[in-house]
């Protein structure tokens, strides 16, 4: 049957409308409501997020605007940003991000709004109150791209019922872990991150405490004798006293191992201490002690970093509202309230508040103070392509855990890292 010309034109017109509508919806990507629409905030699953989320109603009342929060794991969040910002999507306003992992790349791509003017004009926000090291990490060439909201240091989690006094040196910790390691009885001496890239941030404290660094004078530092000693120590610690399968472990695996009473020691971030001792999930919360990162040959030199910050999507149509949210969520008042709930902040005023410090277990507060005093402001190589760098410098960690030739692995990684650094330096231009 043949359709009449008029019918055919109707069908064509309808198809064109449907197609353009569909394409418009898919391709345009405009956020709903324009400048007056709800504020869209992307956050990571974290204790800071849990604490601030319970108070968002206050901001909604204050600003007269709805806030839509989506939470994800750190990898999911990073991938979401990559997809959305590559498409210049305006449907993200406030972004929780890792200054040490993503900032250089995102700023280079032109994806982050600059906050200098906003910070300069806002006396109530008190930018000077933010710790200098944290400010450095969100600043590139004098331009500020985000604000830090939570800081982290490694702390030594240990079983008070099994260990009289926490070890103060790495050597002592290894000896005690070896002595108490009894896998047949379901008890391991130590548990820690062993997955190649995931372990790098925690390994950094061992590296610094052995006197090494990832980059020395612009060149790879992973082949130095200090780095080699750190790699060998960390691998031996996990190989001889850790659970089987350590090379696949991240924080997600080690938390339940410690919380179920299957490890004497664990070293991980202090900001997540509640996950280790929460009575709802931990069998050993009441028997868990905290101590400063044990000293290596170069002393106790843990990382002390602003692990998470807030920033504004440069494509957002609600940048003013996004700043209002950021100044509310990370201003002096809210920071103090959050620290009172056990979330370590990046503001000097909160750390100076004795009542706020009392919210942490006393030995944890001491460990934090020690970390702040001796800490290094980075826990991974300071490069644009952080993911690739972590894969390279993490390779000797795995070789060491497996008992392979650490020197050969470190030499190989060092050569690759040197080549990588040359290319990365070219990509660093903002």
């Amino acid at each position, binding site marked *: 049957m043949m359709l009449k010309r008029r019918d*055919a034109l109707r*069908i064509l017109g309808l198809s064109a409308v449907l*197609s353009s509508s569909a394409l418009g919806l898919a391709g345009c990507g405009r956020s709903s409501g324009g400048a007056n629409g709800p504020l869209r905030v992307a956050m990571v699953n974290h204790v800071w997020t849990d604490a601030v989320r319970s108070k968002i109603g206050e901001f909604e009342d204050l600003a007269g605007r709805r806030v839509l929060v989506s939470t994800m794991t750190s990898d999911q969040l990073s991938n979401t940003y990559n997809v959305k910002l*590559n498409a210049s999507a305006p449907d993200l306003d406030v972004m929780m991000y890792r200054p040490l992992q993503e900032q250089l*790349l995102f700023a280079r791509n032109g994806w982050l709004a600059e906050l200098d003017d906003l910070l300069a004009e806002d006396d109530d926000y008190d930018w000077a109150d933010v710790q200098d090291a944290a400010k450095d990490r969100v600043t590139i060439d004098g331009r500020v791209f985000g604000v830090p909201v939570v800081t982290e240091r490694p702390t030594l989690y240990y079983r008070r019922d099994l260990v009289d006094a926490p070890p103060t040196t790495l050597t002592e910790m290894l000896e005690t872990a070896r002595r108490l390691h009894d*896998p047949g009885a379901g008890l391991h001496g130590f548990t820690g991150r062993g997955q190649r890239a995931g372990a790098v941030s925690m390994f950094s404290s061992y590296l610094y405490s052995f006197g090494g660094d990832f980059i020395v004078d612009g060149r790879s530092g992973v082949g130095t004798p200090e780095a080699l000693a750190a790699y060998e120590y960390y691998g031996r610690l996990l190989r001889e006293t850790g659970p*089987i399968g350590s090379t696949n472990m991240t924080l997600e*695996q080690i938390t339940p191992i410690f919380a179920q009473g299957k490890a004497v020691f664990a070293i991980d971030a202090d900001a997540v201490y509640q996950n280790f001792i929460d009575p709802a999930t931990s069998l050993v919360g009441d028997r868990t002690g905290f101590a400063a990162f044990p000293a290596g040959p170069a002393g106790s030199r843990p990382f002390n970093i602003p692990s998470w910050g807030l920033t504004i999507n440069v494509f957002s149509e609600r940048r003013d509202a996004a700043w209002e949210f950021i100044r509310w969520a990370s201003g002096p008042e809210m920071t103090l309230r959050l620290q009172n709930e056990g979330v370590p902040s990046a503001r000097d005023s909160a750390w100076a508040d004795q009542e706020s410090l009392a919210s942490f277990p006393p030995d944890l507060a001491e460990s934090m103070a020690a970390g702040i005093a001796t800490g290094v402001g980075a826990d991974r190589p300071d490069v644009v392509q952080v993911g690739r760098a972590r894969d390279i410098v993490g390779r000797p960690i795995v070789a060491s855990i497996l008992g392979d030739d650490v020197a050969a692995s470190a030499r190989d990684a060092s050569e690759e890292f040197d080549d990588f650094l040359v290319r990365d330096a070219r990509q660093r231009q903002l």
Partner: protein
Amino acid sequence: MAIRTLEQENRRLKWTMLAPALIFIGVMIVFPIIYTVYLSLTDAFGAVNADSSFIGLLNFSDALSDMRRFWPAVGRTVVFTIAAVALELTLGLALAMLLRRPFRGMRWVRTIMMVPLLATPVAVGVLWLLILDPTTGIANTLLGFVGIPPQPFLGSIAQSLPTLVLIDVWQWTPMMTLLLLAGLSTLPNEPDEAALVDGASPWQRFRHVTLPMLTTTIITALVLRSVDALKTFDLIYATKGPGGGSSHEAETLNIYAYGLTFDYQEYGLAAAVLVVFTVIIVLIVLALRRRSAKAS
């Protein structure tokens, strides 16, 4: 005014009716493929739309000369696919033969068999990750009851790929069984009965009567599962994370390309790897289809 013939009118109408589908295919399939090929010829890094230069086939030569990541990933992709599909075919065929004749409770058995197919690969990955956790998982507790020492499973460099193959077999064997059952139900009974009268054993009847008649169905099932297994991503990423584990022990081409894109932001190189991957898949499908055409 020229008078149009019926044939001319029909031709115009045909294109009019096809237009929405063609636009959809152009935007959703053709454009991404062309753009991927374009990206593969550039040094795109950081952001897809950032300034990039045309570098010809350099990404392809970089990928094809990469003995550290690319070729091992190709090897793992092939090993994973062949091992998983071979096991699924063998088990699927055995189950299909068992389930071929009606029996009491058949509907229940078939329904239970469908359960793994209903779960998403990520959920399956997380479920097995918990079961196989070397320290806290139930698998090692059960092994302990029969005196087998704890195994690292996915925590081991050596055991990861075989474990992933077994998880894939657990999830997709029912699919193979259903396809082969459908094929078996269409076969005529006469040849089998004739072989029975001639005194053929059950194995001889299966080997020389049933199997040859089922060849077309088997090849169709193989094509479907092989393409799917080659592209496996969710299960591996959910259990082994970025890079397929600490020594890239489970890094297949899909995982490698994903890592290049999202962990390294190397869009040009990732696109080149994906183009090579697509060519490999197309060649395999063409080879299997040719075999299928011969068999039928």
